[in-house]
């Protein structure tokens, strides 16, 4: 099957850079998924096919890699991604309260996206900042010792 979609020149250049660093073409699979996701927000079936063609592997094989990892998105996501730590130290320190507040405030639960596409809310395993629990990340930014009070102000920063 020929991809409906093709990779952009920019995406191909970035993937080529990764391919040059590894002994076999397919070893750049994860990097290629990251690159395309960076440009498009998520990995659609068409994007997957295009990357697989480019790496000369089957789309099934690439999908088995894509679906293995937590942060490769095979469904559309919102403009901002909230990753709420639900692991043990954050559990002890009360992440569940933050979750309840996020659900009420945004009207979505884990795995869902707001109707206006502003936020996707996902649970995340330990963010490695356990002395400052509870913690969450929005896009590339880490927030620690999050209180119900802070949360409003944090959310307001993202549009």
């Amino acid at each position: 099957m020929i991809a409906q979609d093709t990779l952009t020149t920019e995406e191909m250049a970035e993937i080529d850079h990764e391919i040059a660093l590894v002994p076999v073409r397919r070893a750049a699979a994860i990097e290629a998924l990251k690159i395309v996701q960076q440009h498009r927000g998520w990995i659609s079936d068409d994007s997957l096919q295009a990357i697989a063609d480019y790496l000369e592997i089957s789309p099934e094989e690439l999908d088995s890699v894509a679906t293995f990892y937590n942060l490769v998105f095979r469904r559309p996501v919102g403009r901002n991604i909230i990753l709420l730590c639900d692991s043990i130290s954050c559990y002890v320190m009360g992440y569940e309260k933050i979750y309840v507040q996020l659900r009420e405030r945004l009207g979505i639960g884990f795995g869902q996206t707001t109707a206006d596409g502003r936020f996707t809310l996902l649970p995340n395993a330990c963010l490695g900042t356990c002395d400052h629990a509870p913690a969450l990340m929005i896009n590339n930014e880490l927030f620690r010792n999050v209180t119900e009070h802070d949360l409003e102000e944090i959310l307001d920063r993202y549009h």
Partner: protein
Amino acid sequence: MTWKKYWTDTTDDMERPLTEHISFDRPCYNLRDYEMNGGYQALRKALTLSPENITNIVQASDLKGRGGAGFNTGMKWSFVPMNGDYPVKYLIANADEMEPGTFKDRMLMEGNPHQLIEGMIISAFAIQANISYIFLRWAYKKAGRLLKHAMDEAYAAGYLGKNILGTGYNLEMYLHTGVGRYICGEETALLNALEGKRATPRAKPPFPQVSGLFGKPTIVNNVETLCNIPHIINNGPEWFKSLGKGNDAGTKIYGVSGRVKKPGLWELPMGVSMRELIEDCAGGMANGYGFRGALPGGASTDFLVKEHLDISLDFKSVAVAGSRLGTGTMIILDDHTCPVGFVHNLEHFFAQESCGWCTPCREGLPWTEKILLSIERGEGKPEDLNLLETHTRFLGPGNTFCALAPGAMEPLQSALKYFREDFERHIDQKKCPWR
């Protein structure tokens, strides 16, 4: 502030080689600052020694892996073939830190990236590897930025790249950022992830030391392990041994999280007691909270309880007490937190992160999680406790393909032992007594 320096308010003269040059009140050292404080002197010295000699020094220092298993680092290196038959070898820093409750490698990388890089160059030289990777957790954005910058500086100064410091030794270093999965931290699964595949573990033997990344001899070491190497080269194995208090050599980055007054990280001699760590460093339990138990080294270690407070936190003493030192970062269970809910949270994590390769783990962990959830909701039956115990055996050591499932069973089996009454109260009262 990410990290409180316990020792700023002490007057002890304890040596703290790993964190001596770390302060979060200022930006981390750049190359020049690092060099002015003795940085890269160990590398200069190492390059005058034979690779075998370095391995022997590290082996003699009794440095044990800080990634959880506690294997002698020099011994591990000594299994790498050195006869020239293998032109391609790899050294990998395991910076995937995803064990719940573990946050020490983040501090070391954000606090002093050059220390890790210098440790990696010396270690790579010792096994004569010409390519090295830092396998970094996706979430560690700041560490990634700082490491990238430090690597660029090291290349520009001739510490990395071709003909390092004119010795003819070549080493490339790459930063690989993962896309999130706990199993990537298991060293053979990490190799598959670096090869662009699903991160399922590999059968051992062959061990990675002989057949690792792309089938070539490979050493995978934890970040903290590698950060110790420059100091051992500078000061010698006897000095390193003298830093430890009990059965083990060196210092350790210990951590405490949960309901204590001052959660944090501290570099202390190997073998401090649990009491010192919790009471002196972490300031004791937070007001209104009592101590019930702790996982001493991350989520996959057995609970220790009050009777263990005076044991030394070294590999052997913790094992004798029935647990593992693991990563040395402790999670406290307080008396306001339901032990069943606590263990359910852990098993939810392990079930979600099982790679699915072998049946006992793939099927057994979700089942374990469901039983715990039903007990927590007040729907548990008395026979459930036996069922959970059966799981701790079926998923225990020797029955699964890697150590994830046995690790998952450690907090469960010890919770059934120490907090059995709490499980029974849920079943008798048909509800969680904490809710």
